[in-house]
């Protein structure tokens, strides 16, 4: 708006809707984050580090303190910038989002919510109310890594992954999502699937990283060519999966 690129006729300030802010951490396996929850609140909420380690690790990469003091989870998800961290993380975690309009409410899976660049499944008369995310299960590890030109800049490539191990130390489930790797957040289905049932070893990780590189479609920018983004996606996937695997093995 400050560049006069958008000039809305009507602007509604939802900041006074306090009931939309905060983390609802019930006893179940999932917790809910209100749309008006600010990054800063998440950073300070002990539930984040305990149950949402992926988000905890990503938060310091998101802009700078002054922005995190104002920026909200709902605003970020509804804006759906493909380079942004949160959409990729919500997608990776398999979260779902609650939309409400005068007509009623509905839940939208993250996989259906993010339609494209700056585009979501929200209808013009709908508003995002909250996002529901699964808590990190036992014997799991998560890792978020990104490469940006300066800390706080949009990622050139960001990788979010979670690994859950079975009783034999093999991968029960892996999930891999990327930011700035396509029109929207990208979920690397084949790469994730390739790890299921296997050990999280060097070769398996390298194989998954290769699959990630084939599953993404980065756009390139003045800061990084598509080739470099693809290269980085491979590098960071290997590093993040390795880390997530280590963390999973270390967790109870």
């Amino acid at each position, binding site marked *: 708006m400050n*560049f*006069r690129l958008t000039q809305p006729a009507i602007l509604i300030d939802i900041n006074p809707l306090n009931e939309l802010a905060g983390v609802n951490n019930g006893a179940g396996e999932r917790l809910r984050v209100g749309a008006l929850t600010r990054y800063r609140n998440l950073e300070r909420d002990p539930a984040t580090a305990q149950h949402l380690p992926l988000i905890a690790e990503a938060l310091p990469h998101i802009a700078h303190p002054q922005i995190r003091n104002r920026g909200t989870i709902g605003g970020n998800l509804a804006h759906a910038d493909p380079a942004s961290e949160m959409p990729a993380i919500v997608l990776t975690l398999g979260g779902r989002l609650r939309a409400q309009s005068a007509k009623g409410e509905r839940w939208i899976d993250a996989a259906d919510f993010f339609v494209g660049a700056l585009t979501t499944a929200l209808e013009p008369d709908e508003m995002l109310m909250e996002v529901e995310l699964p808590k990190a299960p036992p014997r799991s590890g998560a890792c978020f890594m990104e490469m940006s030109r*300066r800390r706080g800049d949009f990622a*050139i490539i960001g990788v979010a992954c979670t690994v859950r191990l079975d009783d034999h130390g093999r991968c029960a489930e892996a999930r891999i999502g990327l930011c700035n790797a396509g029109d929207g957040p990208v979920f690397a289905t084949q790469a994730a699937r390739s790890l299921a049932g296997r050990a999280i070893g060097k070769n398996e990780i390298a194989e998954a990283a290769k699959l990630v590189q084939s599953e993404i479609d980065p756009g390139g920018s*003045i800061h990084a060519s598509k*080739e*470099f983004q693809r290269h980085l996606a491979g*590098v960071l996937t290997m590093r993040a999966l390795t880390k997530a695997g280590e963390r999973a093995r270390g967790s109870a």
Partner: protein
Amino acid sequence: MNVATRNFGAPIRRNEDPRLLCGQALFVDDVELPGMLYAAFLRSNVAHARIRSIDVAAARARDGVVAVYTAEDLGAYWAPGPLLVPPPPIEGITFNQRTQVPLAKHKVRHVGEPLAVVLAQSRYLAEDALNDIAVELDPLPAVVDLEKALTGDARVHDDVRGNIAARVRQSRGDYAAARSRAKHVIARRFLYDHGASQPIETRGIVANWDARANQLTIWDTTQAPVFLRNGLAGMLGLSERQVRVIAPFVGGGFGPKIMLFYPEEVVIPWAARRHNRPIKWIEDRLEHFFATTHERGQTHDAEIALDADGRILGVKDVFLHDTGAYNPYGLTVPINSQCTLLGPYVIPSYDSTFTAVFTTKPIVTPYRGAGRQHGVFVIERLMDVAAHELKIDRVEIRRRNLIPPDAFPYNNEIIYQDFAPLAYDSGNYEPILDKALKMIGYETFIAEEQKKLRAQGRHVGVGVACYVEGTGIGPYEGAKVQVQANGKVSVATGIGTQGQGHFTSFAQIVADQLGVDVPDIDVVTGDTDQFYWGAGTFASRGAVVAGNAVNEAAKAVRQKILKLAAEHFECAEEDLEIGNGEVSVVGVPGQAIKLGALALKANPMRGAVKPGTEPGLESTQYFGPPSGATASGVHAMIVEVDPQTFTLDVLKYVVVHDCGTVINPLILAGQIHGGVAQGVGNAFYEQLVFDDDGQLLNASLADYLLPTALEVPHMDIAHTVTVSPLNPLGIKGAGEAGAIPVGPLFAQAIEDALGLRDRNVELNEIPLSPGRLFELTVKLR
């Protein structure tokens, strides 16, 4: 009588800080006047086009809009700006003068060139009205690439063939002969792109025409208020005395805030007179990317001829320089590149030719370093390549070629930007190099640490780069020093200040001469009603030229104080001492008079005054150096590079610098820190990226990457002192030094970290970036 030096040379806290820290310092946008109008400029959104029509009727009709003007409305006032710096007297020079205009007429030549101005009741309304203006443009091919500009059909200025703004050849010795007897000749192409200065305060101007007083007052973010006053007076048909230009606190300049006369600086005062109302224009950041000048790229084809021992026999360089759409600043930037390339080395023969090229991009004028970076990059990289090919250590080859201390003054026999021969006044380079090597731990790092780190799989490298910098050029500056009746001292000079600490460093000079505490000295800079003459703050010259003028004026006031006090006490001047704000008779307790009381005595209400006596304790003096003083230095750093993501971590950064006598080491350290930070930005983060249509693709601070506290490393700084014989204080300039050698330092250290020499990869361009390193080392291999 000796002058006590308790202030000069001390790390004194700055006089100007309390105002700045409390939010009470006046910047241009803080000027609020009753009845003020606010201006916004409509700017071209294409790089090159003929203007078919501009329809401002709808904009004029909008509520809150007072006026809209285009070039046609300016009538006879419309004219291309003056040439600020004429080309130096070099034989055989080609120079095609084409300067910018206040509002585009017939043609636009770069994105952001102003087409019309709106005056309205608020800036918000003025910007609303920009949308109402209908412009028809017939696009022309953009001129972006320098080599294509020379051979293509598209012309930035219809009457300038090949878009050649200038061609200059300078030489010394016989390069061809040197080449023919050389054992090694090494040729390379180098690309060096320098960026935008991006001060955190953008430009701005407030103009107020007081019809009752027949007086125009301008508040402007300029680095050169006196020239701005003189120029505007001439354009507006006023006497200089009718125009007062105030450069209040200015939020960083770094060069581009000199460029007289920006279109806005021409249009706003004109409009203020026409409307008889104050008018304010403040550049927004988006505008700043187009409306404020840049520095940009040069392409060098350079070769170096060496003997078997790695001693330089000669250097040849042919380069292209992007001057943008106009060339109001003459040849300062490319001449600096040409001259500074010679560095601290003995280069017996030199043959350098450059072609300055018009392009459809914003104007290029000096930005901190002012072309010196480009030249230093070329010679430092040539030294690195030579070291590698001759199998000599990179430090050793530099050492072998340093100008020896007994060779000063050392004449390079070519003409510098100040039109004087490029002669180094004084210097002693080897101790600087040795100190830097010791501080960075060069020997141990190469012999032991690097091997250990490599064994751990870490990619860590070291770099060492040398430079000299011509500083403190003329023509002159002046200063008025005046003792006030309250005992405080006022100092006024004509230069502007943009954070260099002049309020303090000049006070330190005066404090010691007059025995007054620094906080009791009030320095005024940048107000043409306070001091009439001067040039400005640029080319690392403030401390050297204005500082010496302040010193001369303070000395003269000191003489007046002693003379008057001697009369007062009926004693000899030799029996007096000055200190603690008073003059006292040595050895006679109680015999003392405050400076303020003495100042009152110097301006009596009654009584006869001896012929030839000037009232008051004041003096105005001027200082003009015969030529520039040459500062020098060495930077060294150790950097770790991630070989896969190509991100950097600077582990250690060292600066050893010689700028002659130091007035205030704290301020000097700040200047160097800031320079290095801008150098780091230039080397690895900042680049103005244009597409083939001449559109700037990263015109925001989100995409033009200024280094933050996380990108700028901690620096260790040390000094050596070789005084300049060219001024009584022995000072050399320091403002630009930090920024100059960082590019070649990064290239060398990154090459070393990644072992690129062994892989036959050379980093012969700046800026670098992770993406570019990937291309050079992975993709293109």
